[in-house]
């Protein structure tokens, strides 16, 4: 049914390219091929796919629904923390049990738990497991929390904000405040999540010591690719059809949608929560590949980056978000990874680690002014699609409304 609809062309092309990319990387990896792609680069690519997934969520909430949420990386980080708790607990449990192997008496469960708590929390001077770690022993419970914690936070936050009809820049500020508050809370040692140390050693899967990282990295890469494909399918389904029509209607003219009889707040809440859950899942796949998560990850700037990726890729089109996230984050890691050669201007030397942010900022401004459709606009040009001529008027009265230059005729 999906295959014969011309509107799904971009979906099929995207999924096809993703499959080709995944197979190609696998065949070039150290695990299944000659090792042209190093294990660390496989991890980078896997992480990038997770960032593409959270960018997709951002595009649905901002590009389609017009809610400029600058807090979606908080949900991403929360997903990471939730899976990180299990990874750290289970891994430490293995170590603690192994350390008791030579002792004459078999350890009691209490001894094991105390051992785990001392191992994990010694760094912040505590030796008791905080109450929020009550489910950390169970993979399935923590997986449920990966969905529930971002989901419930988004639901409560969204309900309060949308019910009071907070929109536009005020909502953006509120979401920034939310992610900042979360980061500040996490920075505290008594938050129970190891303060600014964060959770570490997440790349070591419990009970998988014998499996080399080259294999584990490619498995995570596959999982990330599968998650991105599933997320793309889900969001494609959500934004096509009448639901998508209503979302774009809310973006361009919220009051009009209300007078058509649609409960706008309910739609916003649904989208905000759904995208938060997807962001949480993306985070849960990202951080085991990154190996470490700390409160700096959910700093307000991270959520702003997310908006920059979507804007550079082209908002309001799913593939635009993926392109933007992949392109910017890969280029960014090249520049900040110290591999970009310094430029000697004679009077000063440009070191990209320091200057990259300025380049990124300037390109964001340039894209916003010169090419509002972002990289995605190239595909429109290729297809011969033009923008409507409305003398610069946006396509609706709302702040988040699609601008003339972003639209196609």
């Amino acid at each position: 049914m999906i295959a014969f609809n011309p509107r799904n062309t971009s979906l099929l092309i995207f999924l096809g390219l993703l499959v080709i990319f995944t197979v190609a990387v696998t065949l070039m990896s150290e695990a299944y091929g000659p090792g042209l792609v190093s294990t660390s680069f496989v991890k980078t690519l896997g992480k990038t796919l997770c960032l593409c997934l959270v960018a997709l969520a951002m595009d649905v909430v901002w590009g389609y629904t017009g809610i400029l949420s600058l807090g979606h990386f908080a949900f991403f980080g929360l997903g990471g923390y939730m899976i990180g708790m299990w990874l750290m607990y289970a891994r430490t449990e293995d170590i603690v049990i192994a350390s008791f192997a030579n002792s004459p008496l078999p350890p009691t469960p209490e001894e094991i738990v105390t051992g785990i708590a001392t191992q994990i929390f010694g760094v912040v001077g505590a030796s008791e497991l905080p109450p929020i770690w009550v489910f950390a022993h169970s993979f399935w419970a923590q997986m449920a929390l990966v969905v529930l914690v971002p989901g419930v936070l988004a639901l409560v936050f969204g309900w309060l904000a949308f019910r009071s009809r907070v929109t536009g820049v005020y909502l953006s500020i509120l979401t920034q405040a939310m992610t900042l508050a979360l980061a500040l809370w996490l920075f505290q040692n008594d938050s129970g999540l190891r303060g600014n140390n964060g959770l570490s050693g997440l790349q070591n899967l419990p009970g998988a010591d014998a499996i080399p990282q080259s294999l584990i990295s490619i498995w995570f890469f596959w999982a990330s690719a599968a998650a991105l494909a599933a997320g793309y399918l889900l969001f494609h389904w959500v934004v096509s059809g009448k639901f998508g029509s209503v979302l774009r209607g809310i973006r361009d003219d919220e009051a009009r949608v209300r007078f058509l009889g649609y409960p706008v707040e309910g739609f916003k809440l649904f989208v905000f929560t759904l995208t938060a859950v997807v962001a949480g899942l993306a985070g849960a796949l990202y951080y085991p590949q990154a190996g470490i998560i700390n409160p700096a990850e959910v700093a307000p700037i991270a959520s702003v980056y997310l908006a920059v990726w979507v804007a550079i890729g082209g908002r309001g089109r799913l593939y635009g978000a993926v392109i933007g996230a992949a392109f910017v984050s890969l280029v960014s890691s090249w520049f900040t990874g110290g591999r970009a050669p310094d430029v000697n201007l004679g009077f000063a030397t440009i070191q990209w680690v320091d200057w990259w942010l300025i380049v990124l900022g300037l390109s964001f401004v340039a894209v916003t002014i010169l090419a509002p459709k972002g990289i995605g606009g190239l595909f429109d040009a290729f297809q011969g699609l033009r923008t409507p001529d409305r003398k610069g008027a946006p396509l609706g009265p709302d702040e988040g409304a699609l601008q003339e230059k972003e639209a196609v005729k």
Partner: protein
Amino acid sequence: MSTLLEVQGVSVTFDGFRAINNLSFAIGPAEMRAIIGPNGAGKTTFMDIVTGKTRPDSGNVLWGERSVSLLRLSESQIAQAGIGRKFQRPTVFEDQLVSENLMMALRRPRNPLAVLFFRPARADHARVAELAAEIGLADLLGRKAGELSHGQKQWLEIGMLLAQEPRLLLVDEPAAGMTLAEREHTTRLLVEAAKTRAVVVVEHDMDFVRRLDCRVTVLHEGAVLAEGSLDFVTQNPQVIEVYLGR
């Protein structure tokens, strides 16, 4: 005669300015009514109150056979109860196809989950095509609404209003910016609609009101000044004074 909408002694004040002053108004289930009045008479505020956009300071708005108070309902609930509104400036979703605009307006369940799982049936497509033919946009279903001319947008909005199948249509200056032929088409659409439902038209243009051939309510300073046939109200000395000034 039974009433569909009854507005009882409603008042609303904006920053000390009394926009609506003890206004009472009633309309039956299949009736056309024109509301005229000079600028600032409270015509648009009246519509805002009925559709839930503005909450009155006092008074009551009752709806339907069971006399439900509309003041407790949200905008979307009021729309679902059967009140459709057309704005003065044509407000259609410019970045969406004509067919998408109409499909969104079709009377179907409005809650997020129902909309998410909604896929148009053949009957829905047929209804959209039928409406498009009625408003003269049958050939333009696949075009973006933003490409339509001003008059076509007005019709599209009337089509969306009809698609909602409301029991009461509130229409704000439907003929503004239309050519004579377009006005006649609009008149036909509205007169046809008023056979089965209540239609309230706010209009400045007396010729257009005459063509509607219906009872007229004159608003002035937020209250009803006169009510009756167009000839009757235009002979009312107070109405003449308000319109022509001293």
